[in-house]
Each structure stands twice: as structure tokens, then as C-alpha cells.
């Protein structure tokens, strides 16, 4: 490989193919990628530090805002850790409600992903269909919790809202509608040649690399890593239900699609079992304001994979330390590997295939009261690209067009 054929293409931090800020330096030899450098941190908001300065109850609402999609994943994980430190036994009904919302969240997240994946490969009909169907589960979540995201369902000791018998019936009815639609998507994923050929072999990640690089969730499972926190480290009500862990040996983006579509079907089944077995009784117990000295680690299978929270209590009403390891941080390290030897045109779908969530990953943002004028912002952008990337946009003016 002669060095003069190498080209570096910067993608991000602001780029139409990325839904959130992140920076990829893609090194190309012709059309082929041979190295990718990833830079993160653009969404870092200092939430871990902020948690230390707020009470446990305030922290629930702050942590809910780590992510716009898996908000319930983070709060459940946090309250589970706090409940373990305080020795609180959550009533069964509270656990069942938590689990139902968790699975509804997975359904809306996976349907969203399927649409994004369709869009990234130019299959916008799939985007329109899945996002239309996603509204069905969003409406249900809004009816159950009052909100489309950030449901505010969790509190230390249980949940804040109960489900009425009518709501439970509505959940079952919605599962029938969604299951019917998902069967259609499974058919598309198994027979539609454009989808299969576009995704097969793209973004290859071997099982060994997935383990070494710490890939989690559907990204790991599509590389043959048979690991799901819901089964292997059960929490909430998962030990009361039967479900299959979707594992696929394809090791590519097509495999990641099959895993997620399969997981949708399992989620419908889990929710039906929970509604059927729903116990009576209270949804929460009263929790003390001061949480004793102690530490706990809670793990949760979020839609994107394992989410880990570490909480340390110091006997006051504020935690000593809260640590969050979101699934995208674990998965991103495998993206660079899976992009190697792919074409530049495969970058958007391969990045999208881990269903990245950079807000979760970074957890901080710097807010500044200064306001940029357009000229100053433009000059800043030109300087930045010149000093950081060696590209001088001032030269652009000299081009004939």
C-alpha cells in the first residue's frame, strides 16, 4: 500500500449522517477503509458529578435525562442500586410495572432503529412504515405514563404509577397490533434481496473481537456472544418470565438486524406473560430519605446492551458517587474494528448498526453564555478545520465555481 494513496475523510462532529455529535477520522486507501479514529465527549454534561450534589430523589430525574430513548433503563438501574444499598424490597407489582415499561421502551427503541437502518441504506419505505408503527407504542407509553419519553415511572422503593385493568387490556391489544406488523418486517428481513444483500458482510465483527472490545447487547449477540443481562443477571421481574435470547452468528449488520427484529417478538411475549401474571398489591414501599453507607452495582439490559450503574452511599441523602457505563461506550470501540476493510459508503449504516447513543455515552455538556455572531462562528470553523484537520476552507473560494 503506497502512502500517497491514503486519504483522510473527517466525519463529524457535525455531519448529516450522524444524529448526534461524534467525530470519526476515516483513513482510506481508495474506497477501502483501513483505519478509523473515534473521538467522543461532545455530549459530556457532568451528570455523575451533578448527582453527588443532589438528593437521591432529584438524581432519579437527572438520570432519566441521560438518554432520550432509554430513559427508563437508566432510572431503573439507578434505583435498583439504591434499593440494594438500603435493603428495600420492592413489591412484586412494582417490579412487574417496571419490567413492562422496560420492554415497551425496547420496542420503541428497536422500531426506531429499524427505521434509521432502512434510511441509511436508502430504503426509506421501511423508515416510513416502522416509524408509523412506532407511534402505536409511543401512544401507549404516553397513555400509561403521561409522556412519550422520560416516563417518570420509577422511584426508590417501586413505581409512581399503577396500571388500571383497562390499561392492561390496552397493552395486550397493542401487542397484537405490533406483533402483526413485526411479522411483516421479519418477512422483509428474510426475503427482501435488497436488504439482505446491502447488509450482509457489512461491518464484520468476529466473536473474539466482540469479546475483546467489550461489545454488548444486540451488537455482541449478532457476533455470537450469548449474553443477555435479563437472563444472566436477572433483575426486576425477568426471572418470572420465559424468553429466548436472540443470538446470531452472521457477525455483520444483517445479523444485528435479525437480532433486533427477533427481540421485538420476544418483548411482545414477555409483556403478555407479565400482564397475565400481574400480581395484586402495592406498587411501592416507602423509602428512607437518607440512604445508608454502602455500595451496589446494578446491571440492566437496555435496548442497546448492558447498562451498568455503580452507586456508593455515605449515610446522607446525597450519594457519594454515581457511575454510569452506558452500552454505546462499550459498543463504540467495536465500530472502528468493524469498519476496517469496508467501503466508505458503508460508514453510516455500520455506525448506525450499534444504534449509537452519544448522550448516554458522554453525559456532559459545557454551557457558555457567549453568543457567536455568524462571522465569528464561520471564522472559528475555518480555523478549527485548518488547525485540527489540515483543511483550509479559505481555498474553496478560489475554486472556479
Amino acid at each position, binding site marked *: 500500500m503506497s502512502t500517497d494513496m491514503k486519504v483522510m475523510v473527517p466525519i463529524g462532529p457535525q455531519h448529516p449522517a450522524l444524529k448526534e455529535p461524534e467525530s470519526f477520522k476515516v483513513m482510506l486507501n481508495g474506497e477501502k477503509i483501513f483505519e478509523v479514529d473515534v473521538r467522543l465527549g461532545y455530549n459530556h454534561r457532568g451528570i455523575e458529578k451533578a448527582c453527588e450534589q443532589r438528593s437521591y430523589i432529584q438524581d432519579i430525574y437527572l438520570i432519566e435525562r441521560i438518554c432520550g430513548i432509554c430513559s427508563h433503563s437508566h432510572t431503573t438501574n439507578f434505583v435498583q442500586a439504591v434499593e440494594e444499598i438500603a435493603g428495600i424490597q420492592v413489591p412484586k407489582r412494582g417490579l412487574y410495572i417496571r419490567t413492562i415499561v422496560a420492554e415497551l421502551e425496547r420496542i420503541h427503541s428497536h422500531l426506531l432503529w429499524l427505521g434509521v437502518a432502512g434510511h441509511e441504506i436508502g430504503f426509506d419505505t421501511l423508515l416510513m412504515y416502522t416509524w408509523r408503527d412506532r407511534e402505536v407504542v409511543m401512544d401507549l407509553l404516553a397513555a400509561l405514563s403521561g409522556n412519550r419519553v422520560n416516563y417518570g415511572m420509577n422511584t426508590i422503593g417501586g413505581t409512581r404509577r399503577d396500571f388500571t385493568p383497562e390499561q392492561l387490556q390496552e397493552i395486550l391489544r397493542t401487542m397484537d397490533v405490533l406483533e402483526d406488523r413485526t411479522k411483516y418486517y421479519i418477512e422483509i428481513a428474510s426475503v427482501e434481496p435488497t436488504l439482505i444483500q446491502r447488509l450482509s458482510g457489512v461491518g464484520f465483527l468476529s466473536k473474539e473481537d466482540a*469479546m475483546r472490545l467489550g*461489545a454488548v447487547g444486540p451488537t455482541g449477540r449478532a457476533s455470537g456472544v450469548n449474553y443477555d443481562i435479563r437472563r444472566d*443477571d*436477572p433483575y426486576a421481574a425477568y426471572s418470572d418470565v420465559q424468553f429466548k435470547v436472540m443470538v446470531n452468528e452472521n457477525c455483520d449488520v444483517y445479523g444485528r438486524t435479525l437480532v433486533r427484529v427477533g427481540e421485538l417478538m420476544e418483548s411482545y411475549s414477555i409483556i403478555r406473560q407479565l400482564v397475565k401474571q400481574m400480581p395484586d398489591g402495592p406498587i411501592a414501599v416507602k423509602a428512607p430519605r437518607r440512604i445508608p453507607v454502602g455500595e*451496589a452495582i446494578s446491571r440492566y439490559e437496555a435496548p442497546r446492551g448492558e447498562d451498568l450503574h455503580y452507586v456508593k452511599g455515605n449515610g446522607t441523602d446525597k450519594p457519594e458517587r454515581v457511575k454510569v*457505563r452506558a452500552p454505546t461506550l462499550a459498543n463504540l470501540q*467495536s465500530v472502528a474494528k468493524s469498519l476496517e476493510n469496508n467501503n466508505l459508503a458503508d460508514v453510516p449504516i455500520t455506525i448506525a448498526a450499534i444504534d449509537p447513543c452519544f448522550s448516554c455515552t458522554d*453525559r456532559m455538556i459545557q454551557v*457558555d453564555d457567549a453568543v457567536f455572531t455568524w462571522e465569528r462562528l464561520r471564522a472559528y470553523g475555518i480555523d478549527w478545520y485548518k488547525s485540527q484537520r489540515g483543511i483550509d476552507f479559505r481555498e474553496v473560494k478560489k475554486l472556479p465555481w
Partner: protein
Amino acid sequence: MANEQQIQTELVQKFPFLAEKFVIKRERRIFCETAYDHFLEVFGHAVEKMDFKIFATVTGLDEGENLSFLYHLSRLDGTLLNIKTSVSKTNPVLKTVTGWFPGSALYERELVDMFGAKVEGLPDGFRYPLPDSFPKDQHPLRKDWKPEMLPEGAGSIMEEK
């Protein structure tokens, strides 16, 4: 909890100094603590000989005079082994575990930025998660750090060149 006890027996037999600070908190949650001198031996043994093939992350803790680090290792059966170790805050030097898990680089960079740990052997790369303009001697997750300590404009893209 036979599985957890078996792990305790094996680790304590191999490393008797772990016996004092070995706690099985509940099913699948094992905590142990070692001086940093022995940390890499214990970590390596758990990874290579005891099937702890998943490195979940490492949590940094500011404990006054020391910085402590809690390495979370997991098995595919869901058992989580948490190995805690401490170094002095005046010279917080750690060795990287990227030799076992290349994916740990970002977790270790977080310790560098947020706690001011020095991680030997960490491959070159960008800072994470703080921006380049953030003062290198300020570490936000240390207990004595306050946002007021930031010089005006630091950590912002708005910084004047």
C-alpha cells in the same frame, strides 16, 4: 451461592492476602480488595484462568488521600467480580489493562481526565471525555473540584485562540 464461594476459594488460595477483604454481597456480586502491587496479578489470573472474559468498566473513587479504582469483570454467566485497588493521590500511577482488553482504553482515559490518574501503557489518542481546552490539572470528579475553579472560557469551544 456455591459458584461464588468456589470463586472465593480459588482466589484466596492463590492470593492469600485477599482473604481479609473478600465479600460476597449477594448472588453474582463479589467484591475483593488488593494493594496495587498485586493488582495486575489478581486481575490477570481472573481473566486468564477463571474465565472472567468481559471487562464491564472501571469506576474511579476519590477517597481522600487515595484514589481507588474498582475494576468490574464479568463472566458470561452473569457473575460480577469487582476488584478494588488504591494508589496515593500524590502519585496516582496505574498500568493499563488494554493488553487484556483493548476496549478498556476509553474507560482508562476517563480516569485520566476525571480523576487525574496516570495510566502507563495507554495507547496514544484523543482526550476523553473532556475537551482539549479543559485545564489538564483539573479533574472534575475529585471531591475538591468545584466548577468555579475553571478559568473563564475553559473547556468551551468558545475559547479565544
